[in-house]
């Protein structure tokens, strides 16, 4: 709670700075608009107010972004191709499917790596090295390849989302499954526990904090994957498609609205996982 005031202060400061920046950046364009309309009798106040309400501003004011968000979410029918709800749901679907596949793959791979020792020494370096590759460079290619196989629509985007989310989950879960103290592992050995028993009774519960941490990273990565994949093939809609459309047609406010929607989606997913994680960790005694 003691963070509430500082956070609020910082947010207010950011909003204030945003307004100032918007007025400053849009003023030259606004002056041109005045000149084209042959208007010379504007006051500084007029300039500021009009700069903050332009149709194609360089930097939209916060109220413009909020207004556009409101319009596209609540004032537009969810079935319309203009609605952010419509596109948001498309992105959400791709993200969730991709994330679930990625999580499954990631956890599965982590279990394999921990269980089979030679697999770790040959596979792990590649998995770590792959983090250094801008995987996003592969996105367009994967989408196109899948199109050749007539896999269209949600599936290719979900595939990219899965691809982006599964690496951080693998690395995180391997760390988690390896996190028990050697003393605790020795204890299991004195019970002659089978590897499966050791896994279910020790490694899996011990990995809970790592699980939730990597789920959060994976969810955020899945959103990025879905959005970037949509940019590549925008015919099927989604928030990434709206980003691209806005940038084609110079609709600045639309870009910002789509971006905020994507950010809200990501924040909501990460937030929900965080809440579930906190509750689970408290019940398991990881947090006092």
């Amino acid at each position, binding site marked *: 709670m003691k963070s509430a005031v500082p956070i609020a202060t*910082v947010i207010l400061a950011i909003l204030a700075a945003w307004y100032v920046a918007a007025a400053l950046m849009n003023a030259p364009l606004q002056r041109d608009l005045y000149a084209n309309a042959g208007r010379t009798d504007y006051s500084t106040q007029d300039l500021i107010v009009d700069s903050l309400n332009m149709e194609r501003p*360089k930097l939209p004011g916060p109220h413009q972004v909020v207004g556009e968000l409101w319009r596209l979410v609540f004032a537009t029918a969810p079935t319309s191709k203009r609605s952010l709800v419509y596109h948001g749901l498309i992105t959400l679907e791709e993200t969730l499917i991709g994330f679930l596949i990625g999580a499954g793959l990631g956890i599965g791979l982590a279990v394999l790596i921990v269980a089979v020792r030679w697999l770790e020494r040959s596979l792990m370096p590649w998995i770590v090295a792959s983090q250094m590759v801008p995987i996003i460079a592969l996105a367009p290619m994967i989408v196109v*390849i899948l199109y050749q196989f007539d896999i269209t629509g949600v599936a290719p985007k979900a595939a990219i989302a899965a691809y982006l989310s599964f690496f951080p989950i693998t690395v995180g879960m391997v760390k988690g499954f390896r996190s028990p103290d050697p003393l605790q592992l020795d204890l299991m050995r004195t019970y002659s526990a089978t590897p499966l028993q050791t896994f279910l009774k020790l490694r899996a519960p011990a990995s809970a904090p790592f699980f939730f941490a990597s789920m959060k990273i994976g969810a955020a990565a899945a*959103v990025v994957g879905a959005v970037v994949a949509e*940019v590549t093939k925008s015919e099927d809609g989604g928030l990434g498609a709206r980003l691209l459309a806005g*940038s084609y047609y110079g609709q600045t406010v639309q870009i910002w609205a789509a971006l905020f929607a994507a950010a809200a989606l990501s924040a909501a997913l990460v937030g929900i996982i965080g809440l579930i994680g906190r509750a689970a960790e408290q019940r398991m005694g990881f947090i006092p």
Partner: protein
Amino acid sequence: MNARRLADLMPPLAFGLAWLALWEAGLRLLHVPVIILPPPSVIAMRFTTSIPTLAADFWQTIKGVLVGYAIGCVSGLLVAVLVDRSQFLERGLLPLGNLVSALPIVGIAPIMVMWFGFDWQSKAAVGVLMTFFPMLVNTVVGLWSAGAMERDLMKTYGASYRQTLFALRLPAALPFVFNALKINTTLAMIGAIVAEFFGTPIVGMGFRISTEVGHLGIDMVWATVVVAAVTGSLFYALVAGVERRVTFWHASYRARGA
């Protein structure tokens, strides 16, 4: 030491080579069309015949990557040190920094292209935004990682804030700073390449990928991806090498039997 490192490299190298061989053989045996997935030999061939293009693309993209990385990391570090003075500011900025790292900042790319134009500057701008927050958060956490006993020691010397900052808290923060520096190499590259999807003069790795995908020139796409992968790995390895020299004293290095 060298023999051991060589032995460490064997399993992954063997695995990788085996995978390449399988890929080559499998694709040829199944007669998979080249436009879907080319075998490694085709990619290698494409690579050797396109070096000028690939070099020009590399140069264009790397400008954005390096400038964005440098500005983002330095400003993240400076802001963290400035914010360190005020607990109020820290309590306000840290949660926001954590929030921002959960967001698809990459989406800021079209806006940056609009503001800074098609050339590498907009790619650098995306890089700055993507690398700033991890650096800020990691540096702040790192500055606070110095132990209570070590800080009390400075108090008993009557040391000033500045003396404590430079003699204790900044060195103690270095492992965290390098953690961010390593993560940021990937983020800067992703930022630059994705930003090129949104607009670029007719050169650049991201540009090459998106246009060749449109022409179904998948072998060229893979060749570009190889360049990107090697660049990313070298960048990361460079930073990791510096980290090893500078933070040789950290427990994680000693554990390997120094």
